[in-house]
């Protein structure tokens, strides 16, 4: 805990807040997107918004793996789990993600599907060992950070010659999604968001390094600061971004040098690229089809691919038309702009994906920040 305390020191925080206020030019707008849901969560949980001047605005990006998983993939998993020979292993926060027509894994489990919440891919291996004769499918999701553990699981299954374990692969990649947001033209009904810089995800960069972000700095002229998840990390990263904007620089800077370097974790990258390959397209909730943004198992590992082994069929379902997740994930709208926010859509009854995980923009605002809406109304 000592470790974390150092990154939550109030005095240092107030000092950083003061520096941001002093250096942010009141004539300018600073719109920074924190891509990663972990950052969104930290901003809300520590109330960082209150510490920033009005012209420094944080935009919550699509970086929560639960939020960007399309309803169709949930439906596919439910269908699979309903087969009596299948045990589906999932991370807990997927349980409540809405599929089509209000379906969810939690409801499927209540109706009798054998769905087990696991905390690591190793749990899935153990379950497969204990249940010879049944198909154990691991519902793999997440960004670059959670892909290596899935790779480890496949290696382990190979070593133990387990024949009853497969992976339903939904791993996605950060840089293509950032590019998609930056390149997306004015979208009808949504509009376009101006972004002046990115806070880059730390955990992802411990694996892939900082190099993949250099493209954004160079091609799009956007500053990127890789930051840790402690509140002080965030504040420092914001100050670094303000400085880059003021100095008209656009570079990749690394606030999180205590764990991140330019090249990342070479062994993990090798392992991942040995087992996985790019999909041509992958659907993101809110962003639609994003080219080369998702991973699947390579041919050589086809026996571990649930989509092939269990003969799963791609399902596509449209989100609730009133749900503004798409605009929220792109940072064009705020949660309160959605008519469903806080009325029919709450963390107990999520309509859209942004409300499901505590890292989603809507859930974070509902859970930690909604008192500000009332304060603002009172002031105006």
């Amino acid at each position, binding site marked *: 805990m000592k470790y974390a305390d150092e990154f*939550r020191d109030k005095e240092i925080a107030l000092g950083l807040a003061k520096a941001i206020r002093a250096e942010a030019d009141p004539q300018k707008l600073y719109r920074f997107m924190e891509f990663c849901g972990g950052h969104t969560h930290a901003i809300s949980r520590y*109330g*960082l918004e209150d510490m920033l001047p009005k012209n420094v605005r944080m935009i919550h990006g699509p970086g929560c793996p639960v939020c960007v998983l399309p309803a169709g993939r949930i439906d596919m998993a439910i269908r699979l789990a309903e087969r009596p020979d299948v045990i589906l292993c999932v991370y807990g926060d997927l349980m409540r993600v809405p599929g089509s027509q209000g379906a969810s894994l939690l409801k499927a489990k209540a109706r009798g599907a054998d769905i087990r919440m696991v905390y690591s891919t190793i*749990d899935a291996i153990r379950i497969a060992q204990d249940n010879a004769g049944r198909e154990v499918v691991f519902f793999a999701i997440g960004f670059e950070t*959670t892909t290596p553990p899935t790779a480890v699981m496949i290696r382990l299954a190979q070593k133990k010659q387990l024949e009853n374990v497969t992976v339903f692969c939904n791993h996605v990649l950060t840089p293509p999604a950032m590019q998609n947001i930056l390149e997306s033209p004015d979208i009808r009904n949504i509009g376009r968001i101006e972004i002046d810089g990115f806070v880059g995800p730390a955990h992802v960069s411990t694996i892939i390094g900082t190099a993949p972000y250099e493209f954004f700095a160079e091609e799009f002229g956007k500053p990127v600061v890789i930051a840790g998840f402690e509140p002080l990390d965030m504040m420092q990263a914001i100050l670094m971004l303000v400085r880059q904007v003021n100095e008209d620089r656009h570079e990749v800077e690394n606030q999180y040098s205590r764990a991140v370097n330019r090249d990342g974790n070479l062994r993990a990258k090798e392992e991942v690229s040995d087992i996985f390959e790019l999909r041509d397209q992958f659907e993101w909730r809110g962003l639609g089809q994003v080219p080369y943004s998702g991973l699947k198992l390579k041919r050589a590992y086809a026996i571990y691919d649930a989509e092939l082994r269990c003969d799963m069929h791609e399902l596509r379902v449209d989100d609730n038309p009133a749900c503004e997740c798409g605009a929220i994930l792109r940072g064009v709208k705020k949660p309160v702009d959605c008519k469903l926010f806080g009325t029919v859509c709450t963390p107990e009854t999520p309509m859209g994906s942004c409300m499901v995980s505590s890292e989603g923009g809507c859930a974070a605002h509902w859970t*930690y920040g909604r008192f500000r809406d009332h304060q603002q109304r009172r002031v105006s």
Partner: protein
Amino acid sequence: MKAYQRKLDIRNGCVDLSHGSGGRAMAQLISGLFHEAFGNEWLARGNDQSAFDVGAGRMVMTTDGYVVSPLFFPGGNIGSLAVHGTVNDIAMAGARPLYLSASFIIEEGFRFADLKMIAESMGEAARTAGVHIVTGDTKVVERGKADGLFISTAGVGVVPHGLDLSAENARVGDRVLISGTLGDHGVAIMSKRQNLAFETEIVSDSAALNDLVAKMVEAGGRGIRLMRDPTRGGLAATLNEIALQSDLGFHLREEAIPVKPGVAAACELLGLDPLHVANEGKLVAILAPENTAAVLAAMRAHPLGRDAADIGEAVADDHHFVQMATSFGGGRIVDWLSGEQLPRIC
């Protein structure tokens, strides 16, 4: 006493369906194990109910079911928990708990040795709290139909005339006190769950609070508006409930809220908020500002209130928000937990 055909083999034996059948085996289990552990004059009479005197005052009654997993955890087990939980529910009314009932639903195959340990710690917890378990029930269900053992307890107590602690009593300006560190029980339980086992020295705070409450009432009297034990859902759920029932809001200071470093670290690791984690030996008291100092002093003088703290105040708020100034300098809401508490994936 009656002679039984076979003796309970506590060391190696286990509960089978005959122990719930109403026959001799059941009688033997009850007298050989439960009566032994709870030992008191009411049970000894062997009736299906107990008659007892209650002193002057209003009766308080409560009931609760215990389905905790694992059954044994650092700092207690399902038995002591069942006694503490019910004693505390009574004590939160400012009442003196007197008598408890205990009902057991046991899964076929449950080991006598474990049952004995659980019954003995119930007996012990009751004696320490000064209450008697005076009636009970035993059912045995087939293997697979219960997770080892479920316990229900009910309890009665008496609250002196004139004392009326109730959820709708809080007023704007009242102080919020908490009797000690938050989240110990929930983290102790989680540390022993399959899949999740992690190293921590945190033990459950499970304890009977009636003595602490008596001292608080002595010091604060009518200035105490209400008390509640923040069990499942933690402090967050308790304060949100009170905000609704009393039609106000709360402002808390995160810096003032005591959390053990080990609990904070475990919560960090699992992506949980200590304010949502369960407690079994803590209470929240809302009281008039002028009584705060005396009550806080009385709490701190008691072993179960050593870390007591004043963590915030009641404010006027139509939205019933529980707001908190973070130790970092910002502001946030402390909301109910939504759904089950599930660790985040990354």
